[in-house]
C-alpha cells in the first residue's frame, strides 16, 4: 500500500476548524497593533522562520476518508479472518453501548478533571472504575489507570524499589510473564544501575517454585502472571507466603476476564496487581490505546503512582469526588514524585467501567466460562491431530501451547490461506520454542471455527 495524494488543492484552503473570516482576522490584528500574522513571530530567529514543509497538500474530509478507507481495506483483521491470536491482546465482543457512551463529547472532549466542580462525571466514573477493579482483583485500592499492562508492570518495579528505599536491588520475574512486560520493566529499571532483574533465563514452562531459590533478602519484588503468558493457572497462595517470608513484595499481572472465575490475587496474598485491561471492552486497534490496571493492598496506598479519585463533600454537604493524594504526583513534587505519569488512559478506563457495568456479575462470568469451555474444546481437538501435542500439565484458562510438527511461522502461513489467523509463534520471543504455538480462544470463536482450525492444522502438518 503506497500513500499517494489525489486532487491536490492549492494553498489558501479554508480550514474547517478555524472559524475566523478575513475581516475578523484583520480586526484582531489591529487590536493587537500589528499589520499581519507574520508580525506575531518576530521573536523567532529569522533564519528559522517559516520553513517550507514538504507534506502532501490538504485533503477535504471526503478525500481523507477515502484514503483512510483504502488503507484500512489493505488489512486483514481478527474479524475478517478467524482469529486464534492472543498473547496479551484479545478479540472479545464489545456491546454497542460501550462505544456509544465513550463517544459522548461530554466525556471524550473533556480534560483531566483538575477542576472538580465541572468534572464530576469523569471523577465519579473513575471512582467507579477504581471500585470495580478492587472488586475484581480482591485488592484494596486501584488507581485511575496506567498506560498498559507493560508500563503498569514497570511501575510496580519502581514502586517496590522505592518502598525499600533502594535497599533491595534484586527483582525476580518469571519467564512466563509477558515478554513485553518484562522488556518494559527492564527498560524502566535501567534508570537504577544497582537493580538486577533475574528469572528470565529459567525454564519458560517451569512452575513458579523454580523462582523461589532466586528470592533473597535483597529482593524487593517478585513478578508472576495469572493466568501466565502460556495461559496456565497456578494457585500462588503458597508461593506468596514464600515470597513474603523473604520480605519481598509480590506483583501479579492479571487477565481481568479470567478473574470473573478465578480466585483473586487479593485472596492469595498479592501486594500489587497489574494487568492489561484491554479485554474489558477495548478494541484490539493494533495494540493501543489499551488500559493499564494497577491495584495494591492498603499498606501501599501512598506509594501508588498515578491518579486517585476520592469521595468527599462540598460546603453544603453534597457528595462529590476529587483527585486526591496529589502531593505524590509530578506537578506538585516535581523531581521527588513517585512517577512522572500525567495523562493516563481516562477514556479507556471509562470504556472498561461501562463494559464491566453492562456485563455485570453474570455477564462477565459467562464470557469467562465461554472462553474456558471453547479453549478446552480446541485443546482436546488439536491434541487428536497427528503431529501436534498440547502442552497442558497444568490447568489453563483460554490460551494454551501447542507443540507443532513444523516451525510455527510456516504453519501460520498455510493457515492464512484458509483465512485463519493462527496462534502466536513463541519462537519470536523464546528462540528455543520455534515449534510452539500459543493458541487463544475466546467467546468469539464458534465451534465451527475451531473445527476449521483443526482441519487446517492437519493440512499444514506435512510439507
Amino acid at each position, binding site marked *: 500500500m503506497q500513500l499517494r495524494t489525489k486532487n491536490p488543492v492549492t494553498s489558501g484552503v479554508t480550514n474547517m476548524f478555524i472559524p475566523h473570516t478575513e475581516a475578523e482576522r484583520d480586526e484582531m490584528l489591529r487590536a493587537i497593533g500589528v499589520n499581519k500574522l507574520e508580525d506575531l513571530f518576530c521573536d523567532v530567529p529569522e533564519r*528559522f522562520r517559516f520553513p517550507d514543509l514538504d507534506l502532501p497538500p490538504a485533503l477535504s474530509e471526503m478525500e481523507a476518508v477515502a484514503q483512510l478507507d483504502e488503507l484500512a481495506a489493505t488489512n486483514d483483521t481478527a474479524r475478517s479472518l478467524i482469529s486464534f*491470536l492472543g498473547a496479551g491482546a484479545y478479540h472479545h465482543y464489545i456491546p454497542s453501548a460501550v462505544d456509544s457512551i465513550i463517544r459522548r463529547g461530554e466525556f471524550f472532549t473533556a480534560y483531566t478533571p483538575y477542576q472538580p466542580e465541572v468534572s464530576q462525571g469523569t471523577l465519579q466514573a473513575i471512582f467507579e472504575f477504581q471500585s470495580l477493579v478492587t472488586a475484581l482483583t480482591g485488592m484494596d485500592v486501584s488507581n485511575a489507570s496506567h498506560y498498559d499492562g507493560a508500563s503498569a508492570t514497570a511501575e510496580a518495579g519502581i514502586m517496590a524499589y522505592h518502598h525499600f528505599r533502594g535497599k533491595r536491588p534484586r527483582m525476580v520475574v518469571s519467564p512466563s510473564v509477558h515478554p513485553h512486560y518484562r522488556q518494559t520493566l527492564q527498560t524502566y529499571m535501567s534508570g537504577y544501575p544497582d537493580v538486577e532483574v533475574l528469572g528470565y533465563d529459567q525454564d519458560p514452562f517451569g512452575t513458579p517454585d523454580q523462582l523461589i531459590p532466586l528470592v533473597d533478602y535483597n529482593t524487593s519484588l517478585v513478578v508472576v502472571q495469572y493466568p501466565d503468558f502460556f495461559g496456565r493457572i497456578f494457585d500462588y497462595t503458597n508461593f506468596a507466603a514464600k515470597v513474603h517470608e523473604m520480605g519481598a513484595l509480590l506483583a501479579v499481572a492479571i487477565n481481568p476476564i479470567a478473574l470473573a472465575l478465578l480466585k483473586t490475587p487479593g485472596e492469595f496474598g498479592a501486594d500489587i496487581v497489574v494487568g492489561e485491561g484491554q479485554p474489558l471492552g477495548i478494541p484490539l486497534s493494533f495494540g493501543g*490505546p489499551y488500559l493499564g490496571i494497577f491495584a495494591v493492598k492498603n499498606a501501599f*496506598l501512598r506509594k501508588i503512582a498515578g491518579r486517585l479519585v476520592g469521595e468527599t463533600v462540598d460546603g453544603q454537604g453534597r457528595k462529590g469526588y476529587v483527585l486526591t493524594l496529589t502531593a505524590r504526583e509530578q506537578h506538585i513534587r516535581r523531581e521527588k514524585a513517585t512517577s*512522572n505519569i500525567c*495523562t493516563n488512559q481516562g477514556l479507556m478506563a471509562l470504556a472498561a467501567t461501562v463494559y464491566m*457495568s*453492562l456485563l455485570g456479575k453474570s455477564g462477565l462470568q459467562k464470557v469467562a466460562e465461554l472462553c474456558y469451555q471453547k479453549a478446552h474444546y480446541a485443546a482436546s481437538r488439536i491434541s487428536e491431530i497427528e503431529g501436534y501435542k498440547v502442552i497442558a500439565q497444568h490447568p489453563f484458562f483460554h490460551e494454551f501451547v501447542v507443540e507443532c510438527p513444523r516451525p510455527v511461522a510456516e504453519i501460520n502461513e498455510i493457515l492464512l490461506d484458509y483465512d485463519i489467523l493462527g496462534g502466536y509463534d513463541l519462537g519470536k520471543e523464546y528462540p528455543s520454542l520455534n515449534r510452539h504455538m500459543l493458541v487463544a480462544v475466546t467467546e468469539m470463536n464458534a465451534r465451527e471455527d475451531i473445527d476449521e482450525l483443526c482441519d487446517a492444522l492437519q493440512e499444514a502438518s506435512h510439507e
Partner: protein
Amino acid sequence: MSEPTIFELSSPGRQGVRFPEADVPHTQLPHGLLRSNFPFPELSEVDVVRHFTHLSRLNYCIDQGLYPLGSCTMKYNPRVNEDAARMPGFAFTHPLQPVETVQGNLALMFAMQEYLKEISGFAGITLQPAAGAQGEFVGVMIIKAYHQSRGDVKRNKILIPDSAHGTNPASSAMLGFEVAHLPSDSKGNVDLDALRSICDDTVAGLMLTNPNTLGLFDENVAEVVQIVHEAGGLVYGDGANLNALLGIARPGDIGFDIMHFNLHKTFSTPHGGGGPGSGPVGVAAHLVDFLPSPVIAIIEDGNDEIPPLYGFANPPQSIGRVKSFHGHFGMLIRAFTYIIMHGPDGLRKISEYAVLNANYLRVLLQDVYHLPYKRICMHEFVVEGKWEDAPGVIALDISKRLMDYNFHPPTNYFPLIVHEALMIEPTETESKQSLDQFADVMLKIADEAHHHPELLKEAPHITPVGRLDEVKAAKELVLCCWIPDKI
C-alpha cells in the same frame, strides 16, 4: 441531586448483555482455583446507559465551549478522526498479526513517522510512547544512553528552567539524574549568564520548553542550544507547546536534539477526560540508533508496480521497549487524519491563528489583569489573578467564578514563577466572538473582585457541586464505593 454509584444502582438478577450458550462440550472448571464470591453490580442496559448519560452531563467539555487551559491545547476534536479510528479495518487488527496482513496500518504509521520528521526537522521518530510524560522518559533515556555509548559517564545533571512542566524534573529523576534549576531573566527567557556558569562536563542535557510556559518564544534559543552543545550536553525540547510552531519553526533546525510530541494537544486527538494521549519522540541524526524498538521501516523496497513492504526494525543501540506492542495506534490514526486534512499550509495556519487568538485575548485583558512579561506572546500567556486593591481574592476564586459564566477556567498556579498565575491558551479553534465573550466575563469578574468579592469567594454557584473539601478527601481516603459483599 447526586447520581448514585453503579453499585448502588445494582439490582440482583438484572443483566445488561446476553451471550450465546456454549456450543462445545462442557469441561469441568478447575476446582480449587475458583473465586468464592464475585461482588459485581447487576444492571440492565438501559440502567447503564442512563447512569453514564447522567454522569456525562456533570462534565464541562470542549464541545460546550472555550476551554482555555494553558499548556493543554484544548482545541476542537474533529469528528472524522473518531470515525477513522473506528474503521473496522483498523480497529479489529491484532498487534501481533503477520506484517503482510497489516500493511495498511504500517503504511499509515510509516507515513506518520515521515510527517512528524518533516514537521519537526528531526531525523528519526518513535511512535511508541503512550503520552508526553513517557515521551520525556524516552528522551531522557536516550540522553543517558548517548553519553554512556561514548564512555562519557560523569554527566549526571539535567538542567531545567524554573518555568518547566513538572513532568520534566520527574522524568529526569526517574533515570537517576540530578536536577539543576535554571532561572529566567527579566524578559522570561532562559538566563544566559546562569546557563553559562552552570554548563560544564557534568551536564547531560537541558530540557527546554519553547515557547516556554509563559507562552514566550525564547529570543536567545539558538544561543541557549549552542551553549549546551559546547559543554557537550544535549538539548531536549518539551513539545507540549508545539501548537505555536507548526510551519513557523522546526525544533530540529534550531538545534534541538530530541523532542516529544503530544498528539493529544497539537494534533487534535481528544483528551478523553485524562487520556489516552500519544507521545511520539523525534531525534536528530546522531540519536536515531537509540530509539525504542521497534520502529516502522520499509523492509523490502517497492517499485512503480509493487508497493514497498513495511515492517518493524530494531535500532542497533535501542534503549529497549517502553510499552506493549507499537504505541497508541488509535491515536496515530486520528493525528494522521488531522495532518492529511491540513497539509503544509493548513498546519501553518493552525499556529498562526493559535498565536493570533492568544495575542488578541492578551490585549483585551492586559489592562486589567497584570501581565508580568509584556511581549508579543505565542499560543498562550500568563497573567496574575490578584490585585493589591482587592485583597483576599486569589486566582482560584477567579477560576471558580468563571464556571458561573459557563466557561472552563484557565490553568491555575502554573508556571510557578508567576504569583497567582492564570495561564490562558485559547487555541485556534475559538472564534473572535468566543474570545470577546470570555474577555467580557473576565473583565466583569475583575470588577466583581473589587466590589463584590463574596461572589468570587463563594463561587461556583451553578455547578452540580460547590467547592469540595479536599482535606477531608485526603484524610478519610474513600477510594472506592461501598461494595455490599466484598470480602
